[in-house]
């Protein structure tokens, strides 16, 4: 038998492509519930290491806190030029719109290795409402992916 390799690593982008195709076909569910350890890690990022950008000045709506995680994965395609100003402005306007309903708590940009680029802590009545808030985040226009999970600081 010939001694040729039986394994060859494909391009890393293929994994995201396959996952997206499977999600679109209804064969795989996107992450909806963030593991407890990751929620705890996110809390540490926000409370200790993270860079808080904005804090809410409005009374919070009733319900629970949720973390909306913004991942700059291999599908993330920011506008050319490397200028974050416009993106921050877009996200800030979104946060402002949430704040008027008492749905915004705080936000941060995560600096460091890994795909997690930023996060928002939002207020929602239940999981479904949190998912709707996350789905309205303009971050998705640049690709990447968004996850949302219950957040207990």
């Amino acid at each position, binding site marked *: *038998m*010939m*001694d*040729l*390799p*039986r*394994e*060859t*690593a*494909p*391009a890393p982008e*293929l*994994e995201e*492509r*396959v*996952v997206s*195709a*499977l*999600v679109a*076909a209804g*064969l*795989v*569910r*996107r*992450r909806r519930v963030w593991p407890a350890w990751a929620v705890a890690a996110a809390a540490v990022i926000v409370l200790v290491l993270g860079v808080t950008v904005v804090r809410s000045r409005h009374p919070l709506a009733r319900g629970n806190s949720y973390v909306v995680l913004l991942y700059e994965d291999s599908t993330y395609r920011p506008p050319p030029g490397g200028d974050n100003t416009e993106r921050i402005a877009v996200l800030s306007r979104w946060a402002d719109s949430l704040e008027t309903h008492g749905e915004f708590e705080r936000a941060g940009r995560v600096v460091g290795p890994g795909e997690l680029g930023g996060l928002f802590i939002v207020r929602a009545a239940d999981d479904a409402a949190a998912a709707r808030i996350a789905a309205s985040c303009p971050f998705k226009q640049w690709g990447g992916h968004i996850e949302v999970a219950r957040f207990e600081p």
Partner: protein
Amino acid sequence: MTDDRALVERFLRGRGEDAFRALYRAHTPALYALALRLTGGDRGEAEDLVQESWVRALTALRTYRAQSALRSWLCGVLVNVRRGRMRIDWRVVDAPDVEPLADAADPDDAIDLERAIASLPDGARDVYVLHDVHGYTHREIAGLLGIVEGTSKSQLNRARFLLRSSLP
């Protein structure tokens, strides 16, 4: 096998993304290597083949019963996906019995061999890759490709003969 069963059961519990990624990372390098060889080194086609194979595999994953290795089952899915994409001329070709080629210890020899495999006719290449590279038996190949064992043997002989002729 046990790990595969655990991965499959974990995935089937909720069809979660993380569980799938574990399956993907465990088996895609083997699927991609097979796809590359079956497509003659066409990376784009090989990637398409891998993607479609995962779609088919997850659709039918409940039928996987762990009687065979998951990797073999997945490779079978891939081979069938490819067969569905092309028309294969499975004519039996008379060829003398040819022994397997010697191991390609030299990297340059391996590269030459990969190129030679890529240049084989589709039917001969499929059988050669499955038998001599990935270790399938003629019975397994016959089942995977929907041919009789004699055809598998003939195609293998044909492939070996052509490879011997093309390699320095």
